[in-house]
C-alpha cells in the first residue's frame, strides 16, 4: 500500500453540507502529487480533513497512513505518525517563541514514538539543527526568539511552515496553497525546501490553485479537483494544460434559469 491512501473519502461540514464527495488517491514516498482546483472546489477542506480538523467530518471512506487506518485519529496522533500540513494561513500564538514551540513539538512526537515516555531532544543537537535549517530556508535567525507567527509577514509565515516541516521530518507532507502570497524569491526557497525533503523518507501532496509552484517542484502526478472530486489525473503536463485552459472545461455547465 502507498504511504498515504484515501479511499472513497467524503467530508462534510458540521452542518452536514458535503464538501468532499468521494476521493480516491494514493501518494507514496519519493512522489509529489499535485491537487489543482479552482476556488471553492473543496481543496482546503480536503487538506484539513486529512490532518483531522474537528470541524470537518469524515462521513464516508477511509484514510490510511503507512497501512494504518487513521480516519478516527485526532490531529496530534496523525502528526505523531508522520503526517504534516503546511497551513495556508498559519496561526499566530503570542507568547510562545518559535524555538520553544518547535522544541515542544519535536519532544511531543518523540514521546509518542517512544511509547509515551519522555525522550527529549538534547538541546545542543536541537539548536544546531534549527540554525542549520533556518539558514538553509533563509529564515532570519531573529525569528527564532520571536513569538510564533506573531507579526510575521506572509513570506515569513510560509518559510516558518517549511522550517517546521524540516524540523519535524514528516513522512507525508500536505502543502495547502503554500505558494499564495509568496514573491518569486520566497517561492523558490520554499519550493526548494520541500523538494529536498521529498525522497525515500517522504512524499508530498501539493494543493494549489495555480501551477506556479509546480515550476519549482515538478509533480509526478497531477489531479484536477472540481466540486469535491478528482475529475482528471495525469502527469506534469496536465498542469500546463490547466494553465492555458483554466478550470472552465471541468465546471458543470450552467443551466439557464
Amino acid at each position, binding site marked *: 500500500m502507498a504511504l498515504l491512501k484515501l479511499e472513497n473519502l467524503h467530508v462534510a461540514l458540521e452542518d452536514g453540507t458535503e464538501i468532499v464527495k468521494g476521493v480516491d488517491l494514493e501518494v507514496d514516498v519519493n512522489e509529489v502529487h499535485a491537487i489543482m482546483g479552482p476556488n471553492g472546489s473543496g481543496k482546503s477542506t480536503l487538506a484539513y480533513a486529512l*490532518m*483531522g*480538523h*474537528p*470541524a470537518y467530518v469524515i462521513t464516508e471512506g477511509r484514510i490510511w497512513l503507512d497501512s494504518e487506518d487513521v480516519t478516527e485519529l*485526532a*490531529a*496530534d496522533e*496523525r*502528526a*505523531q505518525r508522520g503526517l*504534516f*500540513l503546511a*497551513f495556508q494561513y*498559519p*496561526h499566530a*500564538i*503570542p*507568547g*510562545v517563541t518559535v524555538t520553544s*514551540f518547535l522544541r*515542544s*513539538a519535536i519532544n*511531543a*512526537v518523540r514521546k*509518542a514514538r517512544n511509547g509515551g515516555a519522555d525522550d527529549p531532544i538534547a538541546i545542543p543537537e536541537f539548536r544546531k539543527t534549527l540554525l542549520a535549517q533556518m539558514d538553509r530556508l533563509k529564515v532570519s535567525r531573529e525569528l527564532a526568539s520571536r*513569538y510564533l507567527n506573531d507579526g510575521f509577514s506572509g513570506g515569513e509565515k510560509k518559510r516558518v511552515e517549511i522550517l*517546521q516541516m524540516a524540523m*519535524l521530518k514528516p513522512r507525508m507532507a500536505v502543502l495547502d496553497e503554500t505558494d499564495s502570497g509568496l514573491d518569486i524569491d520566497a517561492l523558490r526557497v520554499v519550493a526548494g525546501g520541500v523538494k529536498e525533503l521529498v525522497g525515500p523518507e517522504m512524499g508530498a501532496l501539493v494543493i494549489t490553485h495555480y501551477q506556479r509552484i509546480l515550476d519549482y517542484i515538478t509533480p509526478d502526478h497531477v489531479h484536477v479537483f472540481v466540486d469535491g472530486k478528482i475529475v482528471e489525473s495525469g502527469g506534469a503536463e496536465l498542469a500546463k494544460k490547466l494553465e492555458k485552459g483554466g478550470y472552465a472545461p471541468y465546471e458543470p455547465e450552467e443551466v439557464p434559469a
Partner: protein
Amino acid sequence: MSRTDALAAYEKLPIPDTTEEHWRFTDLRGFDPESFEGAASAEIETMLDLDVSGFATVTADGIEIEKAPEGVTFEPLTDDNERLYSLVGWDEKFAAHNAALWKHGLLVVVPKGVVLEKPLYVRISATGQTFWRLVVVAEEGARASIIEEYASPSPDTEAYSNAVTELFVEPAAKLEYVSLQNLSQETWHFANHHARVERDAELDWVAGGFGSKRGKTRIQNDLNGRGATSRVTGAYFADGTQHLDYDTFQEHIAPDCESDFAFKGALRDHATAVWRGMIRVEKDAQKTNAYQECRNLMLSPTTHAVPIPGLEILANDVRCTHAATVGRVDREDLFYLMSRGLTRQEAERLIVRGFFQEILDRIELEPVREAVTAALEARIPQA
C-alpha cells in the same frame, strides 16, 4: 484612634452583600468571621527560593525576624506608629476588622538614599483568624524590593485572612512590591493594599493570585507628587469553585504622573473572577497618562469572568486608556498546534503559557518571575 473605635466601626458595619455595587459579583453568604477563632499556628512551605537581605515569618503566634538588613528598619510593627492607618483606616468592614484586631505586623523603613540590592521577604502563614499588617516606607531616593507571600500550612486549612498593606514611596524613591497569594482554597481572604507615590518616585507592583476561596483584594495607588509612576502587574489563576475579586483604583492627584495596571487571569472548572478597575483623574492632575487592562482566559465552559473597567476624569488634558477581554482558547489555534504532534493538553498548556508571557515579562525580579511562572504552570493540568 483607638482599637475600641475600630472595633465599634467593624461591629456597626454589616458584612457587605451583593446589593452593594462593589460586592455585586462577590457573595459572602456563608462567611462567618467568628467561626475561625482559635486555630493553632503552623509553618508553611514557600513558593520562593531567594537570596534576601531581610526575612520574616508570621504565624498566629507572632512575627519572627529571622534576618534583618543593616541600616534598614525591619522590625515588628507597633501600635503607635505614626504612619499607621493613614492610607487604610477603618471606614470599610474588613479594614475596620483589621484595625481593631491586628496583632502582628512588619515595619520596613528604608532610609533616605539607601539602596538595598537584595529583596526583603515576609512569609505569612494563615490559620484561624489571621490579621496581618505591613507598613513600608521608602524614604527619599531609597530603593528596595519587598516580597510578601500569603500561604496556608495545608491545602485544606480553613481560615479567615485579613491583610492590610500601607506603602509610602517618598520623592524619587523606587519600591518594588510583590504580593503573592497562595492560600488554601478553604481560606477567605480580604486584603486592602494601598500605596502613596510621591514626586518622581516609582512603584513597581506585582500581584499574584492563585489561592483562596473567596474574598476581595483591593489595590489602590495614589499618584500624589508630580512625575510619579506606578505599575501594577497582576496574574491570577483559579480553579475548582474559587472566586477571585480584584478591586483596583488608580488615583491621580498630581500632574504629569503615569499609572499602568495590567492583569491577566485564567479560570477553569467552576472558578469565577471579577476585576474592577477605576482610574480617577483629579482636576489638578493634568498630563496624566493612565492605563488599565484585564484579560481573561476561560479554560472551561463553566467558568465566568467579569472585568469592569472604569474612568472618572476631572482634568481636561489627559490620556487614559483601558482594555478588558474575556476569551477562550481558540479552536483553530489548538488545531494548529496539535497538527504538529502536541497533545490537546500540551497545546492548551502552550497557549495558556503564551497568554501569561506578556505579563510575566513585566516582572523584573527573576526569582519572582520564576515563582509566578511555576505557580501558573502548576495549575494547568499536566500533559
